[in-house]
């Protein structure tokens, strides 16, 4: 029921933003469409499904967005520096890291965040293990790699999703 309601709300909100209007007919059609889709896919994940409904989790979510944008920009500058340097200083490899997160959505957001940040790309997900392609491997063992790739995001996601 909770996931149904959240999916409905997410879809409906997206519809309203897309239309950019609050006219009654727009709202009625949007509500009907969102209702049908939410009824057809009761188990579909929405970014809000597992989010804890506490004020602290919501504040952390806002802080997370800013942290993420900062990391995204750092990531791009790092990749730009590599691409522009004449001798292409890469040291690629695939390493394994572990996450403490339990929820599906938390893990998915973690994998997504890792993919958009400095030189790392999630290749495979298997339960609590993530396999990460890293452009410049500087710590191949699990603990070090986990500390430098996962820990930063996990701090936030743990509060948000657990």
């Amino acid at each position, binding site marked *: 029921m909770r996931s149904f309601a959240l999916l409905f709300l997410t879809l409906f909100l997206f519809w309203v933003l897309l239309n950019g209007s609050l006219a009654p007919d727009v709202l009625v059609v949007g509500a009907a469409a969102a209702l049908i889709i939410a009824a057809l896919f009761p188990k579909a994940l929405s970014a809000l499904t597992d989010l804890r409904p506490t004020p602290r989790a919501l504040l952390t979510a806002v802080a997370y967005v800013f942290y993420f944008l900062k990391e995204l920009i750092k990531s*791009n500058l790092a990749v730009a520096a590599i691409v*522009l340097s004449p001798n292409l200083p890469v040291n*690629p490899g695939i390493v394994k890291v572990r996450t403490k997160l339990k929820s599906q959505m938390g893990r998915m957001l973690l994998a997504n965040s890792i*993919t*958009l940040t400095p030189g790392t790309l999630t290749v*495979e997900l298997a339960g609590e293990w993530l396999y990460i*392609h890293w452009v410049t491997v500087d710590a191949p063992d699990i603990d070090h790699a986990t500390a430098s790739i996962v820990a930063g995001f996990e701090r936030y996601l743990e509060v948000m999703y657990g």
Partner: protein
Amino acid sequence: MDVLGGLLVVAGAAFLLLGGLGLVRMPDVFNRIQAGTKATTLGTLLSLAGFAGLQPDWTLKLFLIGLFVLFTNPLSSQVLARAAHRAGAEESPLTTVDVLNDEQGK
């Protein structure tokens, strides 16, 4: 405001260019995914922000496009990377370690 928007669009285009350059220069498919999808994500976001400055009426829709790109880009690059690895894509000789291959006994 117009000049600021224009500058943002140029900065975005510059990141798109870096993405293209990375795609050409990087040694194997995984590194290409990294360079190609990351730089283009930021490039797109910057350009969209710039256009929002130039054309404030469009802000909402540009924001939605940006949000969509921000969510789908990492997903598609992850799915691609997984597919490439499962299909046994060749790795650059510079590759130092591949835990996934080791575990699968390749």
